[in-house]
């Protein structure tokens, strides 16, 4: 590090308007202006190429600048930033722009409508009820499946927290559901749930008598989806919690034994502080994933019995009904919710870190 800074040359940065290959500030400025013009004036496919070219220009300016001034850090990081920019950040910005236009991907017309898309998806008599119910369903799924995953994952982690014979082999058994394809496990859950030939109904039938139909009511369908989702993803929570549990130094437990600390107090005073952050991380990851819940619903109910989730709904609107900009507005509403949740989690997760 020190070595690097001593040999770093002291070239000064070019002035804002100087025409030079390493003038990244000028490149950014030009890029933004040209992109904005292109988005407003050209059709989507045309503006795409312009914006893409501008991004390349900015990236090139950054690279030249970094190389000339020996910012090796910048050079090393640049490819990653570029990929993220093209695949995540740029689409994100584009869909933000799109959400202010009336645009359908199967038609060529495009027209600025301001906040109308947002107003429409939230309040329109025809469109809004579906959106709202999907959103509420998603929230309900998120609460149910995430809490189930947290509890099951936590309990599994407690089981595996210690070293015991064959632990490695048993752990992989529990991890396997996470490795299954959602399609296969989902379809097999329809089999387990099937009223005629499913295992669940066979067992219940032979114990209690009478046909048992899980997926027939909304509650049953939700329970069925939640059960399958929680079964698949509890191992993920388990891994996170386990990572925290194994990081607790052994001598703290020894000290607790000497100090005659009760199991309850030992958990809350010693163990929990080590896993609190990871529990929060698990909660955050799984909640965000829960907002993506679509594939399992597609396989299990196809949205029937009022189990439509916002993700599935969005795919339908944007991809099947070609209401692209409405979809964009919905996805920004989802993003807004996720950002709010993320910040809420971060705030709860480390209030102490902020003070320190």
């Amino acid at each position, binding site marked *: 590090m020190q070595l690097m800074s001593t040999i770093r040359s002291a070239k000064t940065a070019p002035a804002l308007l100087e025409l030079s290959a390493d003038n990244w500030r000028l490149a950014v400025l030009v890029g933004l202006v040209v992109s904005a013009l292109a988005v407003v004036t050209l059709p989507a496919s045309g503006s795409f190429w312009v914006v893409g070219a501008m991004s390349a220009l900015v990236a090139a300016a950054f690279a030249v600048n970094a190389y000339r001034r020996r910012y090796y850090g910048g050079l*090393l990081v640049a490819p990653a930033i570029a990929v993220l920019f093209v695949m995540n950040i740029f689409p994100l910005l*584009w869909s933000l722009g799109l959400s202010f236009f009336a645009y359908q991907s199967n038609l060529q017309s495009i027209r600025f409508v301001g906040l109308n898309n947002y107003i429409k998806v939230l309040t329109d008599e025809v469109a809004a009820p579906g959106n709202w119910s999907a959103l509420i369903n998603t929230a309900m799924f998120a609460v149910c499946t995430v809490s189930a995953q947290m509890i099951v994952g936590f309990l*599994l982690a407690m089981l595996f927290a210690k070293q015991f014979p064959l632990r490695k082999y048993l752990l992989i058994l529990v991890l396997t*559901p996470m490795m299954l394809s959602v399609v*296969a496990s989902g379809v097999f859950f329809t089999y387990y749930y099937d009223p005629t030939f499913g295992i669940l109904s066979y067992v219940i039938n032979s114990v209690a008598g009478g046909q048992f139909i899980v997926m027939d009511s909304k509650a049953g369908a939700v329970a069925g989806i939640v059960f399958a989702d929680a079964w698949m993803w509890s191992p993920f929570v388990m891994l996170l919690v386990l990572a925290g549990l194994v990081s607790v130094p052994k001598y703290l437990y*020894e000290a607790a034994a000497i100090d005659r600390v009760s199991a309850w107090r030992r958990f809350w005073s010693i163990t929990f502080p080590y896993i609190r952050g990871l529990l929060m991380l698990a909660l955050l990851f799984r909640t965000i994933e829960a907002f993506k819940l679509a594939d399992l619903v597609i396989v299990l109910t196809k949205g029937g019995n009022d189990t439509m989730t916002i993700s599935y709904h969005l795919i339908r609107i944007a991809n099947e009904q070609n209401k692209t900009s409405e979809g964009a507005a919905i*996805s920004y509403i989802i993003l807004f919710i996720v950002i709010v949740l*993320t910040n809420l989690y971060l705030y709860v997760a480390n209030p102490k870190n902020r003070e320190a």
Partner: protein
Amino acid sequence: MTDRVSFWEWIGFRSVGGIAEAGWGRTLVVAVVSFIYFLPVLFIIFTAIKPQGLALSVPPTLSPTSFFGLIPDQFVFTPTLDNFASVFSRVMTAGGQPESTGFDRFFFNSIVIASASVLLALVIGTLAAYGFSRYPLKGNDTYLFVILTTRMLPAIVVIIPVILMFRAVGLSGSYLGIIMLYAAFNLAFTVWMMKSFFDELSTDVEDAARIDGSSEIKVFFKICLPQVVAGLAATFVFGLILTWNEFLFALLLTGPDTRTVPVAMNQAVSSGGRGTDWTLLAAIETLFLVPVFLATFFLQDHLLRGVTFGTVRK
């Protein structure tokens, strides 16, 4: 005088204040729980070796052996390997000849797309991680947080523009598009994880090499990289798990030539309900599970690190 061992101690919850390693008692308890948790998977695997006609039998057939009389005969079936063969080639129309199902291609696609995207993320991400670790930029943490955030974004938010973008550029249905996209989604944890490995290396050796006149490139390849091979392996496996089963993007962005197994699997059974070819689906899934299962098993020790984005160290 024998030392009394309580039940709780025996299953390892109380052994000397909850400290010592748990013994076989714990193994037994965990084995029962793990087995129950594993049952649905076991059922899929058993279905894969079931004769096709027994798939929907009532009562359901459960096991290829009676486990020494433990399972009543009515639940036992005779195992077969025919289903695995019919994954790749089977009679598609009534009375016709067996024809290729294209699944060899789909498996090939899955392998190419998953490994290429994970490798791409690994190359780009490792460079970036090295950069973040050795040449901290102004606002380093902000960059890192932004990178982490891209993993946290619901993918659904970017799906529309990505579809449009791919259609516009003609990347839709190509290998390159989906590989790039997966690579972007794998980048976040690759950077975080590899950075944690690089942070742990002592920089003394690197500085010594620099003083001896080695170029920066040589320092990276000859000195740093060999020390983080375990990290690279762990990152690869974790990326593989995340990418291998991805369904939604693959459904929307792959074409007939680049279709991955999860998508093809969905189409093979899309009739759903009673029309589903259960034994075939189980056979596909069982085959599809093997690579990622083996990879996970052999690199299990690094998994904890991957799952926490490298924030917990051993």
